């Protein structure tokens, strides 16, 4: 459906927002229906599809009129179709195709591509590594069905390593993190935000690495957790002196979302639930922040900076409130859903990896300072004169941003329904980790695996 809508938008070249909105709306309704009929313990992909469809729906409404070109709308719909395909498929070939297709709009500079080589290289490498891993699995097991390959450790350590490397590049795990900032800095902001919020890296971990390689993951995956923690800390420190709002938001999104991997690997129900809830929160909050930044750029110019006070609150008070609400929701303000997710995440990781449990709050605290710094530099500190009247959030933007804020706030006030569903899902992920090994010879560890 999104791809049909993308083709329609490219051909019709008018009523673009309506086409985009309807395409995303149909996807969201279909995903919601699927989620309703799916069992609580096996509804990860349906839930992710619903999240991403709603995110695209919101982006369609929040997209400034200047950005509503046929290229952008059709690109976003194409991205939606690819992402939904990747989330929903049970076949590795289709997963690879969707993985590559989702990245295609970000290669050409004329479409959503950044103006430098690092995002292109990272996407190319992640796609190449995934392709090699899938070829290896096909060669060893002669099947590419995820269900048939579950708990089989297909392809052994080399396939596992290739998949982890693909995650590192796609997710922007340190030392392959720099492309995230570049992509946000010089690409189209809203589509790039949507692309980053697909969280294909985390999806690969939750849907492929843990179910297929539970034993190997149990022994070797902590390495990826520590890399994710290093990324969260590294990026949090790095963001302290960054002055480009686009880069800053990209770093915040990266640092906060790196915690998801640590939670997924925690091997505790609390940690995995926290990671899954955090996935939702980070996605909703960062999308809101990116959208607000783009709205500010359209109103006040594209060279906004956090090096000085800009005092935009006098012209855009509601955008300022939405910004701080999303920002604080991202870093765990009580009363928002991220407070629950971080509570669970830190509690879960403290049980399994005390070091991660201790350092995650440090990274989150630094990110909170960065969010607040960006807020005060953009919105406060200076009385700007000389502007004629500037529109604050338009009704269309206001409603969708209010919906986003209500989601993170109401989710935080009444988290149990939300958390309970994820807890059921998390228990199945945790069981994949902690179940007795299917093939004992594979599960001993790195050294033994190499010998074998």
């Amino acid at each position, binding site marked *: 459906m999104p791809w049909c809508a993308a083709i329609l938008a490219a051909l019709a070249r008018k009523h673009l927002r309506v086409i985009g909105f309807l395409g995303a709306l149909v996807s969201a309704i279909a995903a919601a229906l699927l989620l309703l009929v799916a069992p609580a313990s096996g509804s990860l992909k349906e839930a992710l599809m619903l999240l991403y469809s709603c995110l695209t729906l919101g982006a369609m409404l929040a997209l400034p009129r200047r950005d509503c070109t046929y290229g952008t709308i059709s690109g976003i719909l194409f991205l939606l179709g690819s992402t939904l395909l990747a989330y929903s498929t049970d076949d590795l070939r289709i997963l690879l195709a969707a993985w590559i297709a989702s990245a295609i709009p970000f290669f050409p500079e004329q479409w959503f591509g950044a103006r430098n080589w690092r995002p292109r290289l990272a996407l190319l490498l992640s796609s190449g590594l995934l392709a090699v891993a899938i070829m290896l699995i096909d060669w060893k097991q002669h099947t590419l069905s995820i269900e048939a390959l579950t708990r089989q450790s297909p392809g052994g350590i080399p396939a596992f390593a290739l998949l982890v490397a693909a995650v590192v590049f796609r997710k922007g795990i340190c030392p392959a993190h720099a492309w995230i900032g570049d992509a946000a800095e010089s690409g189209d902001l809203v589509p790039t935000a949507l692309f980053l919020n697909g969280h294909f890296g985390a999806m690969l971990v939750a849907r492929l690495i843990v179910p297929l390689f539970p034993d190997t993951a149990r022994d070797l995956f902590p390495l990826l957790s520590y890399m994710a923690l290093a990324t969260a800390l590294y990026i949090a*420190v790095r963001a302290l002196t960054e002055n480009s709002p686009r880069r800053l938001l990209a770093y915040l999104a990266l640092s906060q979302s790196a915690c998801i991997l640590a939670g997924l690997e925690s091997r505790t129900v609390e940690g995995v639930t926290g990671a899954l809830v955090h996935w939702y929160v980070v996605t909703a909050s960062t999308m809101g922040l990116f959208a607000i930044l783009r709205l500010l750029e359209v109103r006040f110019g594209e060279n906004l900076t956090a090096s000085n006070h800009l005092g935009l609150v006098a012209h855009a008070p509601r955008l300022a409130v939405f910004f701080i609400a999303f920002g604080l929701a991202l870093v765990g303000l009580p009363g928002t859903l991220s407070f629950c997710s971080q509570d*669970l995440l830190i509690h879960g990781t403290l049980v399994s990896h005390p070091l991660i449990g201790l350092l995650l709050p440090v990274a989150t605290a630094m990110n909170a300072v960065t969010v607040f710094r960006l807020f005060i530099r953009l919105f406060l500190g200076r009385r700007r004169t000389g502007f004629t009247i500037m529109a604050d959030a338009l009704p269309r933007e206001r409603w969708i941003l209010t919906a986003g804020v209500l989601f993170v706030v109401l989710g935080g006030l009444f988290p149990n329904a939300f958390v309970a569903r994820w807890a059921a899902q998390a228990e199945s992920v945790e069981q994949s980790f902690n179940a007795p090994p299917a093939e004992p010879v594979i599960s001993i560890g790195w050294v033994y695996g190499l010998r074998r």
Partner: protein
Amino acid sequence: MSFPETMLVFLVLAPGVIFGLLALLWLLGLVPPERFVSSITGLTFSASLLAFFVTLREVLKSGTVAVTFGNWFTVHDYHFPMVLMADRLSVAFLGMTVVLSGLIGRFSVTYLHREPGFFRFFLLLHLFAFGSLLAFAAGSFDLLAGGWEIVGITSVLLIAFFQLRASPVENALRVFAVYRACDIGLLVGVFSMHHWAGTASFADRLPFLSGSRASTVCLLMLLAAAGKGAQVPFSGWLPRAMEGPTPSSAIFYGAISIHAGAYLLLRLQPMLVQSGLASALVIAVGLVTAAYGTICGRASADAKTSLAFASLTQVGVVFAEIGLGLKWIAVVHILGHATVRTLQFLRAPSMLHDYHQMHSAIGGEGSRAPHLEDLLPQRIQLWLYRWALDRGHLDTILDRFVIHPLMRLSRLLAKLDRVGLRRSVDRPAAPVSEFRAPVQERAG
């Protein structure tokens, strides 16, 4: 739910609900007039006061009022209990919060009349009252942490109340950074308690920990308490926080927020007794802060900063009392101090005017009364004066040994990140003077 329990719930939730309603009205494009805001504030705090008296009566009768809402969320073995509780300790703080918040609300109606941020101030006042009532009525450290964080963020937003001036908002950022850094202690402390004791609830009794575990939890909590209570070495933020409007300074730094750290330690006292090291450290921190506050306060040139340091001195003494196990003396001290200091803060703007009137009536400034520091040798007086003027060099030390190295590291990482990139790829960070004006302005 019995009547006193309902009243306890009402007491805590009323300001939060009013905050939510006012915020929603504003988001929908409606800014209520001053008269409406002041009326609803008066009504809320009057009703809360009545609810408090009902709660107080029940606490005096039966010792505790506790309301259990079940769990906020549950995952596997882990749950986040939602228990509101008023016992003899918390009821004192609840009463202090309701009375002083109501008074500050009434005072601010006149003080901030026609101020552009009138509505924002009252919005934040309600949020603050909700946060502090939640923290003081919490039956577990998890819930206490929730209220604690709300108090922190409200405090910071009120420091930046005069939002179109650079100095208040930069100071707000500094205070926010200190709060967040110290709150790590609270979060990790609560998680450690869950990890070792299986619960962080104190509705029935405090989880029992002893030895190194008790010391670890107490030291982590001390970090949080010292941050919120502006104890040494985190005292540097307190004078910066005086940038906010006087009513908010009164309620935050004269009365409630500054004592939140002491409340945390009072709640933790049974565990504090188990750890000699933590108790000694609490006493040491308190006494050093008391000395620091009194010395720096003597060199302060403005009334609010001087009052802030006086406040700091008293909170330092309260910490020492808690460390010594004098729990109820500390509670009485807090109540007395909060009341007097709030009055002093609220009087501060008109005090100079009164002094001038008095001096002109008596025909001069009169003779200077003797000061304690006159007993010291001249050289030491001078050295102390310089030391106090720079506020004990605490901010300098923090800058030199924490903030500057962190910033240097951040810049180094930025350099590493840009390896292999052409300069033209990144947008240059434009100074504000180059801030591109919108099309309308240039056309106009």
